[in-house]
């Protein structure tokens, strides 16, 4: 397949390891990945904070960037983020229509219908659960709220993780409970957010896992931020990073402090 990648703004700047792993994984599986360089952001932050007027031009830009998918330029669009996929699928059209832009809303929805979160693309579109990954670490999985309850990926990420060779996947207690991120909630209601984060971290620690993984680097930034502050030693990695890792081209060893993933990555020899 010819697959267009939505890197997401936050991963583009802060966590490029997620879209890079997505590229590596899909190319290893024999697909062509395209990165439409016009892309910026899906508008989720503006929408969820209530800045619909400011979201519209961002959404328009996203739609224009990815509209070639409707002409068959690409077979599908992949997003390594549950919440961005959710915003594209469930909010872009609504925001456009609310602004009286029915045409743009319809175009957004048409593009959204071709847009898949990574685990959806792998399991639903490509029909894969075993992607040939190898990751010899103890890992626990946090199902992010929007992947779970907005786009309903269900256990697709777990199906993929269970098939990873040499990995010890341990169940996260109270996994479906929110980590407290919530975008600007983490700032506007910092105290409540921190209380939620504390409980999530306690559950992560109770698993003895070296790595907590999820399909969204925004939630991982939050959980990882807490784990890093607590000097827990537990690392955060995107689902894509684990699935991209193979015995021949392994992911760098997990590092449990924020900001150091990249440093570790810098030593990763031939690992693109």
């Amino acid at each position, binding site marked *: 397949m010819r697959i267009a990648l939505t890197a997401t703004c936050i991963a*583009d700047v802060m966590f490029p390891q997620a879209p890079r792993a997505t590229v590596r994984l899909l190319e290893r599986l024999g697909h062509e990945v395209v*990165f439409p*360089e016009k892309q910026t952001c899906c508008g989720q932050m503006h929408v969820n904070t*209530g*800045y619909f007027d400011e979201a519209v031009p*961002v959404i328009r830009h996203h739609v224009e960037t990815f509209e070639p998918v409707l002409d068959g330029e690409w077979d599908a669009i992949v997003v390594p983020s549950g919440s961005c996929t959710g915003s594209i699928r469930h909010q872009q059209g*609504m925001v456009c229509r609310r602004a009286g832009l029915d045409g743009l809303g319809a175009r957004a929805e048409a593009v959204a219908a071709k847009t898949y979160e990574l685990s959806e693309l792998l399991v639903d579109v490509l029909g894969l659960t075993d992607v040939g990954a190898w990751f010899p670490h103890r890992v626990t999985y946090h199902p992010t709220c929007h992947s779970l309850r907005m786009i309903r990926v269900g256990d697709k990420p777990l199906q993929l993780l269970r098939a990873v060779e040499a990995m010890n996947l341990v169940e996260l207690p109270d996994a479906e409970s*929110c980590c407290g991120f919530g975008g600007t909630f983490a700032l506007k209601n910092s105290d409540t957010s921190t209380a939620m984060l504390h409980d999530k971290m306690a559950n992560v620690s109770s698993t003895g896992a070296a790595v907590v993984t999820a399909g969204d680097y925004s939630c991982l930034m939050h959980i990882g931020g807490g784990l890093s502050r607590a000097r827990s030693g537990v690392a955060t990695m995107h689902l894509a990073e684990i699935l991209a890792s193979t015995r021949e081209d392994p992911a760098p060893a997990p590092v449990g402090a924020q900001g150091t*993933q990249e440093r570790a990555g810098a030593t990763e020899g031939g690992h*693109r």
Partner: protein
Amino acid sequence: MSTFLGLPRRRTVPDDAAPFGDVPHPDDPLRWGETFPDAARAALANTQLRTNLGHATSTIRAKRALVVDEVPDWEALRDAGSAIKTDVMARLPELLTELERNVTARGGVVHWARDADEANRIVADLVKATGETEVVKVKSMATQEIGLNEALAAEGIAAVETDLAELIVQLADDMPSHILVPAIHRNRAEIREIFLQRMGDVPADLTDAPRELAMAARAHLRRKFLSAKVAISGANFGVVDTGTLAVVESEGNGRMCLTLPETLITVMGIEKLVPTYADLEVFLQLLPRSSTGERMNPYTSLWTGVTPGDGPQAFHLVLLDNGRTDVLADEVGRAALHCIRCSACLNVCPVYERVGGHAYGSVYPGPIGAILTPQLTKSSAGGGGRHDDPNSALPYASTLCGACYDVCPVKIDIPSILVELRAREVDADREGRPTGWGAAMKAASFVMRDERRFELAEKAAVLGRLAGGRDGRVSRLPFPGSRWTSSRDLPVPARQSFRSWWAEDHDGPTHNEPPHDGPPHDEDDAR
């Protein structure tokens, strides 16, 4: 800070008795105390509250999940509940007048109240006409919403709450903190203390064993039931085609109030209608499983007007608007009126679970409160919103995690309504003073709508690496970033953005943009 903290009203307990809680009765039961983030901060530090809430909500969550999972057609029931409520809202005016006709035809008297004051006035006058000075009450959110007990007290009428938890709250001169379990913030040691100090007729050797506490309340209430001539209730449902009212409860206190007194006064929000008697079958399956986690609640009382020789011989129904018509006029927000007050959304909400009900500053807390209260009080939704209204902060009291939507028995899309209310709050602000958030969001929008500006911003962001320590971790940022770094680290921006890596690594004909003019990269650093 406490802009809307009103003066305490006259209480039903002696003035010299210090209240047990730190929440004196507010003037407005839909708007009291500090704004949510400040109230939440205080609540988070309340160890007793955290322990009680954590235990109670996790217990009830598990119970609910068990009894919901065993119903094979649960999703169909939710769809039916949602459809019935949507239909009711679409024809509310005609249904209300039809209900009035049917209640009247069966011997009831219907009163219409535009707001809390009007409803309180009607009820007080009805009680005074009976010559009574004490009334018994069935647990009711509508009467909490209008502050009926305080209004009656001001007229020299004592209203006695007969629901056990509501009695605890009343005796403690407290406010409810949960729709269904109003004393969820109290433990049994506290309840014993409240009973000993405030109930008046408890055994001196009362322990904090739940059975003993319940028996003490039972004996106390039994005396009230047997002497009461007037009862006041709310209603879970008003059946239009028969004029029947319904109260769903667990303890039997409601049944006592609804059958023993001579006069029954019911205060019901105008949204509580179901068109036909048969519609009850849907809600009587949805409600108990969603609220108490029971397959069926112990007591379901139904009454239709007045039955000669059986039960109250005078029945008054007060139909309460109190902002509901405005909510109904709102295409998006009106779904909040579908709520059947089961409180499932409170029990699953990770925010409510940690801060409790009082932080919401309204008798309607939790996710449903966060969309209902601002609408009923016209704070951020609808016109006339005031920026300093504490209720304007309520739509932001959520991570949008969606757990509330999943459990709602009538499928109210609470997260979407929260987002809509946020948009209205933002739009209302546009005409007022500029805010830091507004400026930041406008700037971000300007950057994000254009890839060249975005790329420049990315390059600038790399300079943010300077904010990090040697290990690339940012642990201290100035306000408002300090709100993040107070408890969390932040990684510095990546040395090389994805975009820049792609341009280096995947040079090819597929690019639909001019060639990337990225900076040179040190091979050791760039990956």
